[in-house]
């Protein structure tokens, strides 16, 4: 590559489509590369994924390194770490970014330790220091009660980025970029074996994509409360999420947990019902456009995070609220 690579991102492809996080990373990478005067590269790993390279260029990449082999069909820690190590050594970027996703949570730390690179995980803000030209990576710490900005003297500098924290660029189909392959492939024989994958069936709208999310907490008291939420969610064409406490109690599937260790949602409307608004939980929904709260404890933290609130037992408030919402939607 002729000009230096400022930022390398790792793409994620889900059932043939680029994941939203990839577009968000490209938007952020373009901004950072602009401040450094270099180019944006993207590593595209998978099997049968080469088709999306053009889309990656349209969304902001100058180079796409395509590693399209059957062995990379599924994310497996060993193979992906080895391939990414090779990509980074070949392309020599200043900065390596990936999503703080199921993949990035595993791949990011392994790659950083293999490369001896400083890494900031789960970042919500990235910038370049004017004088040092180093990456400034800001992330929530102490369960969201504080924020920390990190820099590092290592080469490369690494960060994983929280979903929905960055803004994608509108696609420009006329953008020019090149696709390249790896000059040498690492050994992809691994000690780990993936023997099964068990998917929980999701009915209705996918939680991360839902325009309306109803979140239920410990105060619902059991799985019956969640049925009420589910009923209202259908009327609103939304989805139901839950706090860690509710999921750990088995009241709602763990795959619908919203929070620091679960899903990140940023719907137009988040309806928080019988949940206290712990930092752990808010880390997963604080990006929502409007948050409303129904809670019997007037001191609950969730009211500090909400635009509208009702103090009262959800068993009394929710049926009346749901009925009126349904009436209004029918009008």
């Amino acid at each position, binding site marked *: 590559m002729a000009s230096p690579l400022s930022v390398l991102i790792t793409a994620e492809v889900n059932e043939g489509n680029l994941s939203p996080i990839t577009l968000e990373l490209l938007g952020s990478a373009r901004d950072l590369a602009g401040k450094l005067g270099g180019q944006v590269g993207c590593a595209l790993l998978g099997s049968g994924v080469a088709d999306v390279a053009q889309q990656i260029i349209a969304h902001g990449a100058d180079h796409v390194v395509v590693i399209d082999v059957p062995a990379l069909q599924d994310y497996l820690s060993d193979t992906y770490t080895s391939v990414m190590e090779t990509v980074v050594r070949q392309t020599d970027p200043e900065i390596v970014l990936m999503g703080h996703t199921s993949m990035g949570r595993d791949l990011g*730390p392994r790659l950083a330790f293999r490369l001896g690179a400083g*890494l900031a995980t789960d970042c919500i803000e990235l910038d370049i220091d004017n004088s040092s030209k180093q990456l400034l990576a800001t992330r929530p710490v102490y369960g969201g009660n504080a924020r920390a900005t990190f820099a590092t*003297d290592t080469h490369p500098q690494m960060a994983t980025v929280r979903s929905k924290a960055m803004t994608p660029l509108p696609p420009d189909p006329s953008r020019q970029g090149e696709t390249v392959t790896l000059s040498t492939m690492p050994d992809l024989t691994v000690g*780990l074996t993936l023997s099964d994958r068990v998917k*929980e069936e999701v009915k209705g709208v996918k939680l991360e994509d839902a325009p309306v999310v109803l979140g239920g907490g410990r105060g619902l008291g059991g799985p019956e409360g969640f049925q009420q939420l589910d009923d209202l969610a259908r009327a609103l064409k939304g989805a139901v999420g839950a706090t860690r406490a509710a999921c750990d109690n088995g009241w709602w599937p763990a795959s619908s947990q919203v929070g620091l260790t679960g*899903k990140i949602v940023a719907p*137009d409307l988040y309806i928080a019902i019988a949940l206290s608004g712990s930092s752990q939980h808010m880390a997963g929904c604080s990006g929502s456009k409007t948050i409303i709260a129904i809670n019997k404890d007037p001191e609950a933290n969730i009211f500090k995070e909400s635009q509208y609130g009702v103090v009262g037992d959800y068993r009394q408030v929710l049926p009346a609220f749901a009925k009126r919402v349904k009436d209004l939607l029918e009008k």
Partner: protein
Amino acid sequence: MPKLIVCAKQVPDPEAPPGSLKVDTSANKVVLPASISPVVNPYDEQAVEAALRLKDALGGSITVISLGNNLQRDVVKKPLSMGADELILLEDPAFEGGDAWSTVTALAAAIKKVGEFDLVICGRQAADWDAGQVGLGLAEMLGLPVISLAQKVEVMDGRVRVERVIPDGYEVIESSLPALITVSNELGEPRYATLKGIMAASKKQPAVWTPADVGLDASQVGEVGRKSKLVRLFQPTKEAHCEMIEGESVEEAGTLLADRLRTAKVI
């Protein structure tokens, strides 16, 4: 019978009410009020639980390693009272102010000193800095296969079988031993300490190791051994104002809330 090592960190209680924590921005340090007491990181307690379930099924031994300075004995001994066998404290002022890199450097040296083992088990992340790097980094530094975010861990026929949490369910991954596992909260509640366990733990004295004891120079650990520099620590300002909807009854408040959302064009 498997020989298990668990890494457990002492952290400020993450269940403390949000907002009680303050930041000294001039020193870039968190100021904890006396009301927030230290606990074993909850994810690490689940790592202890995963080890105990293996021990229940297969026998074996559990060695817990905790790193820090001024570790409170009644806190860091909790894994012993749950049923772990040994406790090693990497405790020295030199360990203070570390990041994932310097922590992993020290833990890797300590694990090498412990010697033979089948599994190292870590929590997915610590509830204070929430970085989630130490377990995976430790595997890299020790050259071990690693499976992260386990909800179930089984050992059979000299291999480890893990149910690994993925966004829409879980996958089953197997590895040869020795290996490193990080545990996710889906594993389930850790057990309570029994009275018998508490009595036994009170009699046990942890081994205390300094950097020199694990063959490290003080310049490799703690604040000076960091790869990442903390540039700024601050608290985001909140300007949220919640409009409380009230009615003659709470039911009416529910109805009025729906009306308010309509006039605000939210629904």
